[in-house]
């Protein structure tokens, strides 16, 4: 009996081992690891997809002129290898899916989006319904890294990623990861700009998406806007010069599947504060630097009369400089800024702050919620913000 049991167990183990060999079946060198991807509109309703991928060599190829643009029926591929270790490819097709298939078919590698760090959409495309289907295809069908950051740019998205360089360190993927992490710590980019979060918000009826807004630098370091705070601007118009030609600052806010507005860096920081996702520990107010004592308490609500309410309670500690404003003055300024921000979001029809997540709780079924007309109610709702600031 023991012998039969052992024989059975041995056979079963052997079978299991045989079935487990080569379960992955793919060599690393057989994959084309894409680090950045860009999608632009092309003539006749087509899409041009540009990807920047690891080439696997450290040789710097000469820059080649871009290949011929494909016809609207598909085809064509341009290769540009001007940065050591990376190769840029593009393809044009009627849809993103077909363009990616074309890229996969015409390169001797399997396209892998598992290391994707950013997806750049041109602003023109983001303002159409095509943005959601593009992102959905990338997320669901190509199993892209769902933590990849969605970026919207007013420039040509393909050129945007072509001029992206790993300035610090040698790995573009790590450079981008650290850049987004740093920007998120500064609250100058929206907190939920990952691919999966953006797709979920675009599909959701209870809140809206916010992607990162970025542009190429104009290089005008003598541009001064005296009445505006440095971060209260959109990218591409910052008075700076740097080898990093791309500037990431602010948010592209969506209403459903379409982009409907932009927020500056300062407005994005306030949005992070209102949604309870602020990470920055210091702020400069009236020439003095304050440390923000966490946790800052923010309570959003929808009043019985339909008003959008927000109550902010924060405490600040003076760290440097001379505080010229009193706590009440700081609170009044925060209230004013928050009201302006919420009204701007209302005008854009974008519920990036998530008031819909609170309004949905009043309805018992999905049918009741969807017929409640929340989108119209949100646009016309009054806004009330109160702030309590304590300066220690």
């Amino acid at each position, binding site marked *: 009996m023991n012998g039969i049991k052992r024989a059975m*167990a041995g056979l*079963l183990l052997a079978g299991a081992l045989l079935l487990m060999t080569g379960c992955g079946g793919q060599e690393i060198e057989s994959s084309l690891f894409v680090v950045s991807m860009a999608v632009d509109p092309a003539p006749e309703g087509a899409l041009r997809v540009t990807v920047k991928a690891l080439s696997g060599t450290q040789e710097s190829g000469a820059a080649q002129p871009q290949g011929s643009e494909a016809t609207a029926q598909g085809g064509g591929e341009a290769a540009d290898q001007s940065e050591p270790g990376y190769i840029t490819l593009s393809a044009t097709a009627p849809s993103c899916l077909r363009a990616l298939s074309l890229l996969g078919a015409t390169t001797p590698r399997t396209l892998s989006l598992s290391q994707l760090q950013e997806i750049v959409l041109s602003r023109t495309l983001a303002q159409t319904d095509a943005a959601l289907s593009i992102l959905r295809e990338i997320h669901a069908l190509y199993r892209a890294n769902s933590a990849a950051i969605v970026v919207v740019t007013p420039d040509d998205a393909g050129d945007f990623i072509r001029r992206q360089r790993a300035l610090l360190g040698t790995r573009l993927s790590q450079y981008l990861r650290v850049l987004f992490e740093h920007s998120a710590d500064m609250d100058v980019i929206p907190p939920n700009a990952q691919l999966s979060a953006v797709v*979920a918000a675009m599909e959701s009826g209870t809140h809206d998406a916010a992607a990162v807004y970025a542009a190429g630098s104009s290089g005008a370091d003598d541009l001064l806007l005296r009445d505006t705070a440095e971060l209260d601007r959109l990218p591409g118009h910052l008075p700076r010069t740097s080898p990093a030609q791309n500037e990431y600052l602010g948010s592209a806010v969506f209403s459903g599947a379409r982009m409907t507005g932009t927020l500056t860096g300062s407005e994005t920081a306030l949005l992070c504060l209102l949604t309870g996702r602020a990470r920055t520990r210091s702020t400069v107010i009236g020439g003095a630097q304050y440390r923000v004592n966490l946790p800052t308490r923010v309570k959003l609500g929808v009043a019985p009369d339909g008003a959008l309410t927000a109550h902010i309670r924060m405490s600040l500690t003076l760290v440097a400089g001379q505080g010229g404003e009193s706590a009440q003055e700081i609170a009044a300024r925060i209230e004013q800024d928050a009201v302006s921000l919420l009204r701007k979001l209302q005008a854009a029809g974008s519920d990036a702050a998530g008031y819909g997540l609170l309004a949905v709780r009043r*309805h018992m079924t999905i049918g009741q919620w969807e017929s409640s007309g929340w989108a119209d109610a949100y646009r016309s709702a009054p806004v009330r913000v109160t702030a309590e600031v304590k300066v220690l």
Partner: protein
Amino acid sequence: MPRNMNNQRALAAWRARACAAAVACGAQIFCLGAGIAVPLGLNAAWLCALPAVMLAALLAARARGVRASLGAGRNMERLRALLLCAVMLFSCLLLLAACVSLCTQTLLSHARVIHCAALTLLFILLAAIPRMEGVCRLCFALRLFLPAGLLLCMLTLLPRGAVSGLFPLLGTGAGPVSLGALCMLPAAAPALMLLLPGGEKDAGMLPRPGFFALRAGLGALCGAGLLLLPALFSGYEALRTQSVWGARLRLSAVGGGQKPLWHMALLLTQFAAMTLGACALLCAAEEAFSLAFPRLQRRRSGLLILAALLMAGLRLFSGIGYEAAMYAAPLIALPVPLLLLPAGKRKRKAADR
């Protein structure tokens, strides 16, 4: 051996058996819920599972009351044993189909479906070699680890404000949720494994019905609790667009990419629960088979025959789609009255004597 020690050993054996039933019930409720309740109720799928939880507890309590001689010579009893074997086997097939669907979505996304099926079946067969006692002890050992592990992964991975995903509370409405609840009732079938008379170590004091009902009910409740996760992770809009069973089983798809180790831990804990449940059901099917055909008991022929049937079933479903297993689940409910009612009458006759 002193009678007290016999009773303690019997209690420990029955406790382990109840834990195995609990794990199987929880896994079945989750798998069937992801397949049927989520498309019907969307974010209210967990509500659809609550009647199945109560039924699992009720069946466990009722099954305990049956110390009938399943398969003892008479044709009727052998038929009942065979029906119980069929119910256990089909429940096992359902769990295996769910494992394969989840496997092809996650761990082995590039492998052939039939290879995933064969691999899963092999692992379950290996675990079934020590018979029911072995898998029961394993379930008993993991009875706290599995729910604790799932809870820990859940708390770590859930995004901020995830509670909003539960609203609206009634999901698609009372009608579809009620229909989902009705379709979910067969998920309580694994509790019927407690109908089996048990081994030699189980001879002795038989615990009260509440003993089994509590354990089976808690296991089933864990399975229903897992159905909260699709709503917490995704919200009803994303659930509407998920048409693949394996994608719905894959709880943490949205928001993945961050904390990959925790996502993997959650996935492996899910797999562990599902394969343990399938193994317990296979062992229960083998025991019932042995009661129906005692002559095949000695050389474990029953296990081989049942494994062959499972492989044939998996092969069939790989051709027509694993969702077919899910839609065929209500068939499990058909033999249940035959399994329970005559035993009730026999109990009354024994009590009258």
